[in-house]
């Protein structure tokens, strides 16, 4: 898939600066990222390279004190120049995010049903009854069994994988155009990771939602992203079609990432064989 003529989201010269006791530090610099309509774009890079900062800049949820520069164009508007009220009509509604750790991201004292419907009611002006019906549909969509029962449940009654499925359903409630997933499988048990990845893949195909998929696992990238941006020290060092990047990496850093991935795979295999 290629970039559409008019991208859905276009990050232009993004920078993120954080104040520290020893002066401001620029964590993200001059970053350009484009996401086309219906495209799944990967953002890969090692821990601390600024992936979450980039996603937070899009959602307007940077840590207190952080400042974002550049432009983030979405549906003809620069998200960075919107007021809070204007941004609130976009986030949760046109763009939604799934965080890394669903145990921390879901409110422990609110039912799954409430967390599924509150933004739906707010953004779409539907009645509570319509929202509840939609909540059941959404849980069904993410393959949570017995959705009528699940809407009344609290997050602690779910397993980790189920929680992430619920978080994905919450993100999809308002039928956003863009879904950001920030390492959505890293905090999960290995046994359920593949299932969550398949879910993202299927949802992209079924709903046509565009995705910005963040991961440090290039193998994951290979199975899900059409195009990939490789991130290092707060900026993009390489980008292109995922298979091309993985097969013919041009940047030393990408090669190193691939090598470390090969090594960790080998280690995993050794560990698995060592087990009785």
């Amino acid at each position, binding site marked *: 898939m290629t970039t559409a003529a008019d991208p859905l989201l276009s990050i232009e010269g993004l920078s993120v600066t954080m104040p520290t006791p020893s002066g401001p530090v620029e964590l993200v610099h001059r970053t350009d990222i484009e996401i086309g309509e219906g495209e799944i774009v990967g953002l890969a890079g090692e821990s601390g390279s600024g992936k979450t900062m980039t996603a937070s800049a899009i959602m307007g949820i940077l840590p207190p004190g952080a400042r974002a520069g550049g432009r983030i164009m979405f549906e003809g508007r620069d998200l960075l120049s919107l007021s809070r009220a204007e941004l609130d009509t976009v986030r949760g509604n046109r763009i939604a995010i799934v965080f890394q750790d669903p145990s921390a991201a879901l409110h422990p004292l*609110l039912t799954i049903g409430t967390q599924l419907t509150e933004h739906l009611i707010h953004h779409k002006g539907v009645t509570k009854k319509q929202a509840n019906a939609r909540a059941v549909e959404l849980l069904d969509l993410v393959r949570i069994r017995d959705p009528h029962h699940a809407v009344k449940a*609290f997050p*602690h009654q779910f397993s980790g994988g189920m929680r992430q499925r619920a978080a994905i359903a919450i993100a999809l409630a308002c039928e956003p155009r863009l879904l950001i997933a920030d390492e959505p499988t890293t905090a999960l048990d290995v046994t359920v990771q593949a299932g969550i990845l398949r879910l993202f893949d299927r949802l992209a195909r079924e709903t046509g939602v565009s995705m910005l998929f963040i991961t440090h696992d290039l193998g994951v990238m290979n199975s899900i992203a059409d195009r990939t941006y490789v991130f290092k020290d707060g900026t993009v060092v390489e980008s292109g079609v995922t298979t091309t990047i993985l097969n013919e990496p041009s940047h030393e850093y990408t090669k190193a990432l691939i090598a470390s991935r090969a090594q960790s795979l080998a280690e995993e295999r050794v560990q698995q064989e060592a087990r009785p």
Partner: protein
Amino acid sequence: MPPLLKMIGKRLLSALVLLWGVTVVTFLLVNVVPGDAAAANLSQQAYDDPEIRAAFEAKWGLDQPIWVQYVRYLGNILQGDLGTSQQTHRPVAEDLGQYVPATIEIALPAMALAIVIAVGLGMLAAMRKNRPTDTGIRSAALVGLSTPPFWLALVALYVFFYLLGWVPNGGRLSNIYDPPPAVTGMYTVDAAIAGQWDVFGDALWHLVLPVGILTALTVSGLLRFVRSAMIEVLDAEYIRSAIAKGLPRRIITWRHVFRAGLLPVLTVSGLMLASLLGGAVLVEQVLSWPGLGQYAYKSAISLDLQAILGVTLFIAVVYTLINLLVDVLYSVIDPRIGAK
């Protein structure tokens, strides 16, 4: 059985065990601590009268083995007999029945007001962390916290009674009124029950200053707990989720932040309420409020043993019941507890 009821049953049982423990301790204090219980409890005159002394010793089983004495002591307590106060020459239970409602009448409204004010201001301070609003609120709380209660009571009395004449100078009721027929012992409630609205108004007027002072003192103590609990919640990832959902500030504040921040505040509030119900000696003294604090204070300085033990037992019951209440509220708010 519903999990909540089961939980209450369990807690009630452990509360009973705890209270039983308290009776053992109080019993040991009276009986095992060296000394003549009759001498400690009877006036000199009564002690010198062999008949009275014999009656006393028979009632408390002083001639019996210690465990019999304990069983008798427990039996007396269960029948509401807490002994007789040396000071008032009345049954301690009767004294408590008079002083405790006076304390409840100022403690409950003060606590309710304090929670509303402290939660409101604490949340505001947390959301405006390190900004002028926050600094202002915290400074005010610090002033309140470092003000000695009796001094605050004196100044309040001086300003609002002497200078402004807005409130009476203490007491529960003006001289022209007789207390309403006792039902609860709380004058406002009893006056309302009796339909004596002029007495009701007068009793309410007398509540303003003590309730106001206790509220101010409690707010100062509670506020920083609310603030730090709310700051912790505001930092939580699930609040970031709520913001990322584009929810209006009102929903984020009350549905997401308030609810989660309330849990730690609940425990502290429970302890503060229990402490208020134990009476506020200094404030009661300045405002001539005949509450439990004054009773306990007078019993302590005159070594009125039965009265002291009665107050101790009452306070133990208060702490136990409030703990139970906090536990129940906790499990109502937090589904993770009730489900276990």
